[in-house]
């Protein structure tokens, strides 16, 4: 089904990554020196999770003539924004700096990517918003980056990855959530791995498709980590967005966690109400990919989830999850579509409700979204 009216908020799209050369102007002297003299600038920082020529990574009609998965701003307008008449698109730049072990280098490159995003994307296209890329494996440096960028209210969330060093609910990551909550930023966990661990508890699958499928189990583990560690008790204003997760795994997690909680409650006594309630309040999921074979099945699954507040519209451009403009599943009511396209994203991202959003460059004033 096509998007029936204009004004949607696309909560997950992926512009082309800047090449190293494009990042050099945004780096401090030392890092520019290191990248050039160590030939690091010859690398493109592509994540293993998204091999550029894999069918999942890009729909054929969204590929660039060069074969690159995504294109420049013109391509984003032509492919991701205009066909769906989206009013806003949130950019998740999946740059591999996060996979570097050197925390300082990762932090420097993340900052460069964020600055590049602000100048090259946000300044030039008023419909775009972005995530703050951070070196998660150094919570202190991640917080520094959030603090550095947060004043630019076109950044609406902090981007983390579904498979990383440690489960993200753990206390050592809490400074990141404190900073996000303070600045009205959501936390987005996006599909993808830095492969610090095997993707499964029994080791390393042979095929990329298995790794991708395993991402949904990573989301389950991460969400359960947030619940068990009490992140939502500690940060009651925090919203968690699960991006590119598949969605239909959710009811099982709600049921199982609520049931087990009743028997293990004394272990985690800060969980003060059924986990299903906590999830419905704090957690959101982007739409694509949607692991449901038809509208009827999706309708039943949404009933199992028990909330119409949780889904956020997304195209996941340029990843190949649907054909043509048929981004919406069949069978959704008009009210459900409206919630999905506009209301749920607005509820999730307070910064989208700003009357005006200024870059620290004194860039264009943004129209009120409503």
């Amino acid at each position: 089904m096509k998007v029936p009216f204009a004004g949607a908020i696309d909560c997950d799209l992926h512009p082309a990554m800047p090449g190293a050369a494009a990042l050099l102007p945004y780096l401090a002297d030392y890092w520019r020196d290191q990248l050039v003299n160590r030939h690091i600038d010859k690398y493109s920082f592509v994540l293993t999770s998204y091999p550029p020529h894999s069918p999942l990574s890009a729909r054929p009609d969204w590929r660039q003539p060069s074969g690159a998965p995504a294109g420049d701003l013109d391509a984003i307008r032509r492919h991701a924004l205009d066909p769906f008449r989206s009013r806003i698109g949130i950019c998740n730049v999946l740059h591999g700096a996060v996979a570097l072990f050197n925390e300082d280098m990762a932090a420097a490159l993340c900052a460069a990517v964020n600055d590049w995003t602000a100048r090259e994307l946000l300044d030039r296209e008023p419909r775009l918003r972005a995530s703050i890329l951070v070196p998660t494996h150094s919570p202190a440096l991640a917080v520094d980056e959030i603090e550095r960028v947060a004043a630019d209210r076109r950044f609406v969330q902090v981007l983390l990855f579904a498979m990383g060093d440690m489960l993200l609910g753990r206390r050592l990551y809490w400074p990141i959530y404190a900073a996000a909550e303070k600045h009205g930023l959501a936390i987005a966990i996006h599909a993808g791995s830095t492969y610090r661990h095997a993707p499964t508890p029994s080791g390393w699958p042979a095929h990329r498709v298995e790794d991708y499928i395993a991402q949904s189990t990573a989301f389950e583990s991460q969400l359960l980590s947030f619940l068990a560690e009490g992140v939502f008790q500690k940060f009651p204003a925090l919203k968690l967005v699960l991006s590119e997760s598949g969605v239909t795994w959710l009811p099982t997690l709600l049921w199982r966690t609520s049931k087990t909680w009743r028997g293990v409650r004394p272990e985690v006594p800060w969980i003060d109400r059924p986990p299903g309630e906590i999830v419905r309040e704090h957690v959101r999921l982007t739409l694509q990919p949607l692991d449901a074979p038809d509208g009827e099945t999706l309708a039943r699954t949404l009933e199992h989830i028990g909330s119409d507040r949780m889904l956020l519209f997304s195209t996941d451009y340029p990843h190949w999850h649907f054909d043509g403009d048929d981004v919406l599943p069949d069978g959704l009511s008009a009210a459900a579509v409206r919630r999905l396209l506009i209301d749920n994203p607005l509820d999730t991202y307070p910064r989208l409700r700003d009357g005006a959003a200024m870059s620290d460059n004194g860039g264009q004033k943004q129209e009120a979204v409503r």
Partner: protein
Amino acid sequence: MNVPLRHAAASAGLTIVDCDIHPAYRTPQDLHPFLPARWREHMTTFGEHLRQGLSGQLAWPRMMAAGMRLDSFPEQGPPGSDLKLMQTQHLDPNGVEYGMLMQLSRGGMEERNLDFAAALSGAVNDWQLEAFVKPEPRLRAGIVVPQEDAAFAVSEIERRADDRRFAQILISPRSSDPLGHRRYWPIYEAAQRCDRPIALHVQGFSGGHASTPSGWPTYYLQEHYAATTGMQNTLTSLVFEGVFERFPGLKVVLIEGGFAWAPALAWRMDKHWERMRQEVPHVKRPPSEYVREHCWFTTQPIEEPETPAHLADIIGWIGWDRLMFSTDYPHWDFDDPQHVFKFQPTEEQKQKIFRDNAKALYGLQ
């Protein structure tokens, strides 16, 4: 002694096949009669060599009674070690017509020393027969084999193949490589040849990897859940490595790993198989078809959605002929057959889940 209320219900004619019962050793020395002297000494001197930080203890302590029902402790020995109590507390009052034994510990599945693992495997298989199956004909053993030593596993399977008191082959889904890996294929070939299902019971001991893709959980609440995500990954591996394509007669039972996740995983596998078929040309059909044809799921620990009828949706999607009732006696998250369904299955659905599906799979009369 109190008269258990359930006697009245049991005499109402419910008979079940319980697809997950855990026997236990009365003492650590129970295996000794079945072990060669060299390994008796090894067991005493060195013990098991497992992939965990604590010895004889779990790093996520259970909430009570070592993870057992508090009322399942016999006079002597741990829960599950006293056949008489198992009979009076569970088999008799719950109308158990057949019970599938799942002996998880000291069977070699998790043992790092593969020579010791082989000895343990043979011993535990002998022990199951002597201690439980011979005195209690309702019970069936499982051929416990160390999956990391496929050659030995095949030999042990073949040694037991003619003994129909062994209903299936037990390997660990927390293996060192995903179970679809071809180094495990000789085990599947042997299983197919001797017409026994492969039983994948969730395993508390690591095969060398953290229980989530981002490392280790903090709380038991999480570790308990990790059994279900691991089982999903294992099933994905079996499908995408082409195990079901290569062994069309293979049957797999997924035990205590949950089942409510199965439809969503099947949809997810189908969707991404479509997109990525070029990578896996040996997977000739949609993954959901392989799952439908080759896999069975046990019920415990059953989900309890706020709206009980939602679980009927899930079972409908999986297939009412694919689910088999289990209690997990004597563990704490035990499902009681009188109370397991919070919605009302039809009589036919109940018969299938409580009895007929398991009888068909295991060839029980």
